[in-house]
């Protein structure tokens, strides 16, 4: 059975610093994707993720075990991303684009791999979903990012946002309902 994050931190602080690489591998995907939702740039999200891991490493001895490591990591990441956005003065804009042909195609991949049409359709879906998430009100957008890209549990999100669990469930439900309405053309049978 794999050690928990908190157990690994204890070992790292005891001198097994190489274990930190394992902690990085556990969260690198989620952290990079979460930051990508905020920064919209793959390279920037990797660079900032690296900075966050370095910052976390330096502060490991101050980790409070009454919180989960994941909530601490993503809280630091969120603040770091906000700082980057402030510096860049990035304006989040909607990327709405009407679908001229109006087709709702089958989005399952063919056995031999996607055809050029399916590739284009997948790219269009990617653009559409990012635009739809952008269009959500701030708190709904944040919760969707924390749930689906940071992959935090409902309890972790409630702890991180200092929000009742019921409120988290309710807002995620409403956020997904809004996304469903905006992405209806991609979700039909």
């Amino acid at each position: 059975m794999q050690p928990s994050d908190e157990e690994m931190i204890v070992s790292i602080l005891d001198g097994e610093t190489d274990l930190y690489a394992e902690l990085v591998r556990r969260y690198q995907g989620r952290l990079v994707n979460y930051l990508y939702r905020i920064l919209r740039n793959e390279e920037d999200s990797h660079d900032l993720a690296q900075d966050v891991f370095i910052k976390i490493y330096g502060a490991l001895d101050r980790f409070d075990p009454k919180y989960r490591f994941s909530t601490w990591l993503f809280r630091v990441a969120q603040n770091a991303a906000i700082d980057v956005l402030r510096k860049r003065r990035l304006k989040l804009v909607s990327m709405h684009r009407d679908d001229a042909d109006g087709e709702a195609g089958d989005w399952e991949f063919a056995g031999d791999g996607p055809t050029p049409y399916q590739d284009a359709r997948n790219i269009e879906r990617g653009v559409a979903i990012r635009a739809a998430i952008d269009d959500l009100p701030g708190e709904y957008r944040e919760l969707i990012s924390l749930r689906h890209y940071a992959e935090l549990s409902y309890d972790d999100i409630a702890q991180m946002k200092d929000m009742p669990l019921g409120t988290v469930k309710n807002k995620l439900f409403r956020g997904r309902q809004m996304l469903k309405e905006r992405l209806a053309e991609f979700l039909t049978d």
Partner: protein
Amino acid sequence: MNTAEHTTLLEWLDLDLDHAKSLAPNDRAALEARLANDAELRAERRSLEALHSMLDADRVDVREGFAEQVMESLPAAAWDRSARSTAWRLPLAMMLGLTLVSVMLLGGASADGPIVGTSLAVLDFLQTTTLAGSGILVAAWRGAGFGLETWVATSGLNLMAFATLVVCLNLLFFSLLRRRAKAPAATPSSEG
């Protein structure tokens, strides 16, 4: 089915699909029973499943070697005892080495003298140097004190200026202490 009931069923569907595994067994049983008889609800489930898959599929790949790159970039942390524990070893080794070399050289220079005597001579030298250094320091402070006393005693104005300077320095000192005491300690939750 009324709106509130429909909303509840949609919430159950959403929760069930989100791998939260927090839907109570009774609620799940009721949901499954309703799904069996409600085509509209089944269509809703398919839409939600498609949405979840779409959200989960829209991800970027982490570049290869990312973890290794992070590890290479890690600075020595203040809490890292393995880094701290070796910090004093090199200076101590150098000091011992220099002492040994000094003893050997001095022992070789005075071929008739015992090694013990040579070591004592080295220690005596260190003691003399320390005393001389502290003596110079004391002399310097006494000289400065004497000069200041002479200047202050020449006039009342000088005395007042000196007193004002002392008060200002004290106020500065206390304000710095208070500022340091008020600064919040960095906690993990506030970092970033």
